[in-house]
């Protein structure tokens, strides 16, 4: 017969005790101090952290934050609508914020800089305000270029070169604002002739190895040479270069689009005063002058902030145009659906 050691019984009792201790110990929510602020950041931690530390130095308000991709951050804000856990949604492309407006999760607020900003850097009611601008670029692996005896692509049509067959990576329009900006760029350079634009995209399809879920998803494969080239936001591309990967950044002579990054106050925020101070600070030169110091390669949204010289050098002589918000807003769903039907899964 089996003899049960006393130790087994002790284990059972110990487990029960642990269960009780657990309930006692871990059920409390965090205590809210007077001078703290809770934020979901869509900007990666290595850019958001220094910004929030500088803000704490300037205002004495400590920022607690977690970083999520734009989709995850918005899904949380929507799910937490009845009992918001954070006060501010920080960073992320404007179209994420547009989706949030439809869900009614933001509290309109116009910071002091509101009047100084160009119209495309602010929502008319103050649902969001832009803190930066982010143009698209072509990024190519140097070794790939050398192997095929090519120069960095300087036109949209250069990407149709047979050398790029199955070697491009770019974002999926169902999930990425980068991709939507890219598609509207193609429509724009084709004089808003949608059929012509889609003809081009269909010709580009066999060149594409993978449509990635996130906008920057292809940067590492291009850096490693798993893919030859891709179309990314400039921050992601310059970051890849800064990490030590041998890549070249170039622009099509026909022009390429750009998209704004925004900040918004959450409806029902528990610390609205502190939140407004962060929004005031982030939309002013106080924060945007720090981009250069921390090597954050966004183009500042505030007109008084000078472009960092090396970034200005990269952007020199390039043709960059903003995507028309009204046109894109009115046609976005239809264009993305058409892209899925005709380009992604023909």
């Amino acid at each position: 017969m089996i003899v049960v050691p006393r130790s087994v019984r002790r284990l059972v009792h110990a487990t029960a005790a642990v269960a009780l201790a657990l309930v006692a110990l871990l059920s409390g929510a965090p205590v809210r101090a007077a001078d703290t602020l809770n934020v979901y950041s869509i900007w990666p931690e290595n850019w958001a952290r220094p910004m929030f530390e500088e803000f704490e130095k300037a205002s004495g308000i400590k920022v607690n934050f977690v970083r999520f991709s734009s989709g995850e951050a918005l899904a949380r804000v929507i799910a937490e609508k009845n009992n918001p856990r954070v006060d501010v949604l920080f960073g992320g492309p404007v179209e994420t914020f547009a989706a949030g407006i439809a869900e009614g999760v933001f509290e309109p607020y116009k910071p002091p800089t509101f009047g100084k900003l160009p119209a495309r850097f602010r929502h008319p009611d103050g649902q969001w305000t832009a803190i930066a601008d982010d143009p698209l670029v072509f990024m190519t692996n140097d070794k790939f270029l050398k192997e095929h005896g090519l120069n960095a692509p300087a036109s949209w049509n250069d990407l149709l070169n047979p050398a790029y067959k199955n070697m491009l990576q770019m974002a999926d329009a169902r999930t990425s604002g980068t991709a939507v900006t890219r598609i509207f760029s193609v429509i724009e350079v084709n004089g808003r002739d949608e059929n012509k634009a889609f003809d081009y995209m269909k010709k580009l399809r066999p060149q594409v190895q993978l449509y990635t879920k996130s906008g920057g998803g292809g940067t590492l494969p291009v850096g490693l040479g798993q893919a030859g080239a891709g179309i990314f936001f400039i921050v992601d591309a310059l970051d890849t270069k800064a990490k030590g990967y041998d890549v070249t950044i170039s622009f099509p002579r026909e022009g390429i689009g750009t998209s704004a990054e925004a900040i918004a106050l959450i409806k029902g925020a528990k610390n609205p005063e502190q939140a407004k101070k962060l929004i005031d600070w982030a939309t002013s030169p106080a924060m945007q002058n720090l981009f250069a110091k921390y090597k954050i390669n966004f183009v500042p949204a505030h007109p008084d902030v000078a472009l960092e010289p090396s970034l200005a050098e990269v952007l020199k002589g390039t043709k960059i145009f903003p995507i028309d918000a009204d046109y894109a807003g009115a046609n976005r769903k239809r264009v993305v659906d058409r892209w899925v039907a005709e380009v992604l899964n023909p």
Partner: protein
Amino acid sequence: MSAAGVAPTAVVAGRPSRDIGITLTVAALWLLLALFVVYPLVMLFARMLGMLGGRGSVDFGALLALLTDRNQLRAFWNSLLLAFLVGTVGTLAGFLFAFTATRCRLPGAAVTAIDASVLLPLVSPPFTTAIAMIFSFGPRGLITYGVFGLKGYTVYGLGATLFSEALTYFPIAYLTLRPILTAIDSNIEGMAQSLGASRWRVFRTVTLPLTVPGIANAFLLLFAASLADFATPLILAGNSFPVLPTQAYLQITGLFDLRGGAALSFALLVPALIVFLLQRYWVSRRFYVTITGKGAGQTPFDSVSPGGRIVLIASVISITVVVAYFYALLLYASLVVALGANHTPTLAHYRVIFTDGWNAIRDTLIIAGFSMPLGGLYGILLGYLVTRHRFPGRRTMEAVSMMNYALPGTIVGIAYLIAFNDPPLVLTGTALIIIACYVFRYGPTGIRATVALLQQIDPSLEEASQGLGARSGTTFRRVTLPLIMPAFFAGLGIVFIRSMTAISATIFLVSISWTLITVKILEDITELSLGPAAAFSVLVVVIVFVVVAGISRVLREFRAPGAPGVSLFGG
């Protein structure tokens, strides 16, 4: 227990109504299941149908159009195909490893080596293996291009996803099958052979049938795990092989369509429940008892021919080599400046994770430390009750307990977020919500292991205890518990490992106050910081190994004199 096996359990089964301990435990488990499985899903369903605010009333036409969309249907069938293949391949590999470890008379050190290599894929956060795959098998992969000189080879698709998922999940099959193979009384096999059966015939007519409940359980667990996995296909499936969990995730995070995403996920429940019912029906027609309590010396049975032994060991070694290669690459990536660009050795990544990443490490350890014993206890209690006691809704309880395991983590995470953000039970922002998620999402592994093991143990052991006057609580503690200890530790181990490595559900549950290593890893990968991501992954592997070694030590302490030996998780 099975229909066929019910007859001898009549004594046990007749009692529960009179046994207050059992009634209370059943009630407590139902309460927990209602709170942490049913309630969140109901809330999600209600939100999906627009009954709890959100955008206006629900558009059933649009929902139906989404569910019958050509691409979504294709994704649905792809998911089933992938899950079936992962279940089959993974169970085969798990059986191969378990059989080799228990029947090839390997020295103890070799068994430990097998255990260790099996653990590796199980303990790696999903994104890191996928990155290693891309690094090795892409158009310029270390293996495809570097070794074989293949050009223009594309890694993305069914093959890579299947390979990566089978490699990640086969350890679950191993952990489920090994205690069962160990528990088979070798005298039975020996008797069959002395009656003139060949080794192959013994395997086919004795060993294999006795393992059937375990094989079915392993297949079910792998099928469900693959059906719910979104991270691997997200990186490796590419555009030609969409699967449903990924589509659901994209619907929510990409198109900001919570309703559509939830609807797609609920579609996954159907195949998950069908497989569960099939398995119940199939397994329950068989009767397996090898531990009868009639003590007999175990005569070792020579079940493998020398030739077969070589084949088995060679197969195990080749899989092990593949696994080892992946982890060598991971270790290397954590020790150089930037993998693929600058291979200067450095310890900087480890400095980063122990400074900036310290909070995540501390939080993860606290959460995993609490989830582990609770998950293990939950697994054996529920597994024991549904197998050995008859009470109303027993089958329903078992099915409900599997739901959080079978649903994609994204959905479970969002359901928790919606359910526990408002009164009556506000848990968002606490560690408790993450712990509850882990216990009810990964505890089912322990339940399945317990059920499979108990199906092998003759209830007459427990009847004897009860016949001598012990109450069911005492019988459970003093007779059943020691017998199902391997299942307890299998369940506990899986919960701990998953607490260290899971991301799909908990990415929605981490908060300002509680964050996790896996979320940091994903963050690092987003930022192209492969070094810190690799360093975190190596740390996770090391921690899990230390804890698992600790568990086996404890297990040895608890071992009853004369009971079969117990090593890592095993029986």
